[in-house]
């Protein structure tokens, strides 16, 4: 612990109470990020306390990282400095919920599953079917910007977050947006917080637009011999009148992961054997509505799948939660499947998905690594390399393959990052992908929101 942090300890206690400051090494180690532990963990009760903690940290030049369930601390680079963890889990209240208006305001530390059950009582939901669903907090979900299969129909958080309250790097409690569904009053600063990994502000409250739950949902799975045929089916759906809520392409080998013991542990629920064919490509799609609507979907999907050359077709009803839950948990399942799982996120235009998948698989094959991919129909590919171990040899293979895959992604006009990989490999991999031309503008924003650079320094793209 730095001298400065020691001096601050009692002052932290003055803010949050002595019971809510932890210095015990065991607790500190549970807040480690890539092997770096904080000198203190604080547990504020409300936004005001967060503001005071940051204010103090800024005065003492202490680096601060806000945490939720700590399920996604692996995203980003190791912190350059990390003095104080601000555990946000005591900020777990629903501040406002107006079901009739389909709007909601919550504190950042509320667990997503807890919120989902409150919404369910009103037959509503948030389209945040994100990984680590049973643990993650709403704030962590938004700050890391993880996406969801439901983005096919509902878009991402930026499309349904209406406003936020957050604490800036100087400890100011501020807000932008509002709680109404349509609003152009002032700059949309809250959009900057989404996916910023806490480097611009600590989110204390989030206002959402909620969505009515559909009457019923179904899933449809079709298997194909090639990626091209699978994408052919995707393009047919895109050209049709159907508007499914999810479309996902699974590479050969994903089924093996989804039927593993790890998968059953992460997302329990029995999956019918052979529902997802392991040796083949598969396209899974979900849709919702009344019986007549569901029947129309099934009829059109069957016909389009046939035309695209599907070898097998299944319609899911009873298996739906388990099957879809495993798609949602693709990242944790992949992480459990190898001691050195490295997952690239490759975003390309939909017509480039097949080529991108082909190039990535080819590079994986060239270095002899087991690889699987889950591609969202909108053009977001999660490509997982699953080395047998975390050895230097594996690292060399992974760093070579990921560099070539990233270059191919750039060539296709896409965006690539490596959100998950072993901590000790991060300095060898391009975690945040190639530097962008607009990075200068991002640096400018950092100076406005966090002039002393105390928020998660070094964690974000370009060392921000």
């Amino acid at each position: 612990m730095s001298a400065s942090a020691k001096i601050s300890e009692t002052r932290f206690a003055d803010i949050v109470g002595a019971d809510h400051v932890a210095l015990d090494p065991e607790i500190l180690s549970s807040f480690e990020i890539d092997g770096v532990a904080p000198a203190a963990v604080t547990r504020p009760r409300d936004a005001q306390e967060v503001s005071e903690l940051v204010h103090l940290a800024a005065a003492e030049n202490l680096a601060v990282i806000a945490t939720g369930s700590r399920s996604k601390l692996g995203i980003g680079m190791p912190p350059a400095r990390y003095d104080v963890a601000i555990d946000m889990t005591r900020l777990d209240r629903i501040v406002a919920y107006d079901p009739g208006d389909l709007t909601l305001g919550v504190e950042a530390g509320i667990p997503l599953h807890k919120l989902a059950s409150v919404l369910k009582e009103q037959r509503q939901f948030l389209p945040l079917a994100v990984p680590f669903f049973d643990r993650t907090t709403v704030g962590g979900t938004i700050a890391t910007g993880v996406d969801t299969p439901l983005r096919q129909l509902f878009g991402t958080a930026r499309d349904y977050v209406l406003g936020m309250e957050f604490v800036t790097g100087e400890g100011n409690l501020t807000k932008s947006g509002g709680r109404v569904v349509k609003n152009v009053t002032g700059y949309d600063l809250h959009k900057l917080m989404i996916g910023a990994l806490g480097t611009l502000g600590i989110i204390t409250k989030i206002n959402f637009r909620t969505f009515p739950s559909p009457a019923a949902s179904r899933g449809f799975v079709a298997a194909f011999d090639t990626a091209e045929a699978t994408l052919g089916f995707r393009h047919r759906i895109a050209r049709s009148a159907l508007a499914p809520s999810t479309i996902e392409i699974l590479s050969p080998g994903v089924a093996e992961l989804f039927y593993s013991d790890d998968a059953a542990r992460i997302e329990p629920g029995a999956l019918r054997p052979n529902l997802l064919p392991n040796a083949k490509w598969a396209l899974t799609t979900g849709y919702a509505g009344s019986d007549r609507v569901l029947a129309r979907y099934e009829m059109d999907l069957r016909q389009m799948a046939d035309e695209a050359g599907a070898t097998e077709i299944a319609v899911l009803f009873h298996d739906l939660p388990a099957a879809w839950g495993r798609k949602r948990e693709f990242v944790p399942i992949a992480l459990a499947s190898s001691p050195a799982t490295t997952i690239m996120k490759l975003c390309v235009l939909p017509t480039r998905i097949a080529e991108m998948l082909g190039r990535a698989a080819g590079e994986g094959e060239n270095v002899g690594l087991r690889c699987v991919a889950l591609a969202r129909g909108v053009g977001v590919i999660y490509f997982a390399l699953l080395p047998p171990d975390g050895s230097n040899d594996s690292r060399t293979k992974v760093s070579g393959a990921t560099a070539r895959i990233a270059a191919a992604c750039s060539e296709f006009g896409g965006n690539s990052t490596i959100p998950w990989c072993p901590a000790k490999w991060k300095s060898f991999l391009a975690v945040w992908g190639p530097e962008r031309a607009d990075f200068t503008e991002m640096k400018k924003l950092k100076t406005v929101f966090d002039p002393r650079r105390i928020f998660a320094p070094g964690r974000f793209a370009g060392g921000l």
Partner: protein
Amino acid sequence: MNRDLIRSLEQLLGNDGVLSSREDLLLYEYDGSVEVARPECVVFPRSTEDVVRIVDLSNRHEVPLVGRGAGTGLSGGALARHGGILVVFSRMNQILGIDVENRRAVVQPGVVNLDLTRAVEHAGLHYAPDPSSQKACTIGGNVAENAGGPHTLAYGVTTNHVLGLKLVLPTGEAVQIGSSALDATGYDLTGLFVGSEGTLALVTEITVRLTPLPETIKTLLAVFDSLDDATETVVDITSRGITPAACEMMDGWTLRAVEAYVHAGFPLDSAAVLLLEVDGLREAVEEQAESVAEVCRLHHAREVRVARDAQERDLLWKGRKNAFGAIGRICPTYYVQDGVIPRTKLPATLRRITEIGRQNGFEIGNIFHAGDGNLHPIILFDARNEDEFKRVVTTAGEIIQFCIEMGGAITGEHGVGMEKDHLMPLLFSEIELDLMRGVRDVFNPKGLLNPGKIFPTSKGCGEIRVRPLPLAGTMAR
């Protein structure tokens, strides 16, 4: 304005690319709002390079710079409040690329909103954000204001459809932000710049999403004998989880004015009508239309009419989209607001607006995006009567104050501009405004780009300013 500067601009853009005579400039002192401000010179760039050079000249001469599309804005966003150069994008009106398979288009800022839809309709696509002024307004202006429209209830506003922008920053650098592929790495700069009301950069290229046309559309007109029944219907539709593509409301007073102009067949003796649209898959639309009609009847709609064909549908929409033109025919001046409230507060808010009108001696018309809770109360008055004018200002202030008390906001789609800057302190603390100012200043360090917008010019609590209002225009809201 400095002759050297005008000469340099003429050298750059040609003589027909620069206007500086008084009679030419008069045409550019208005937009669709009640504000007036005259630029010192108007320029018409044809390329990003032109814009870069214009910005350089503005910097060298320390002269303000304001971007402008078609000038249909409703908050004075595209007016040169502090003079300077008005950069009009009407000659940068090319659609640079359409990618049907990936549903993307790249356009220059001067492309008219509806022209993009017309260019992609053949492929079964459209550009979804549809402000009522879509026949005239430009996509560049839509991006600056984060424009909405009647169909944003189901489809979202401009920001939900913009993926990337090419910008010319006030420092003169051109930079591409966002990307055609999703999830551009780093901070969501596109999300910040859309809706920044032209205060952070000039936009020279816009990458947008295109949206499939629905398989079926049904348009319904529900007629009510009481305003409360109409607003309660909207609350009920929303809370039942029915999301129509559009849910517009017109009160009796407004629809009589509209009917006299458009002859859309609106019933003259009703207290309010709802114009509802459901779209999507054939099977879903039939069911949704039936549920919507059922809720209307439950709340005592005396008639629920379904448009028989595209022609009747177009006529109903013509009535809605030309409403403000219709009102311009019957009174010398009107003042429109843009407050937003939670949908559940609609009945109480409409009652309160009527009451505020009565107390201040005004009849207030209401025609608005009910499904979004985005109000457009219209106060009719005679600007030549000074006393009446003062009372309008007080009345408008009371309505906005009530919207805020209901948990709402001061503008849903028209922007803050120079019209509502003084109201910002009602929603944001000085610390919050300072953070936003900090963002502006980091991109626009000399404050030359669109000065005098969004932020209150003097510190302290907002007070409705008294200012001269021009006669009513005919621009659609």
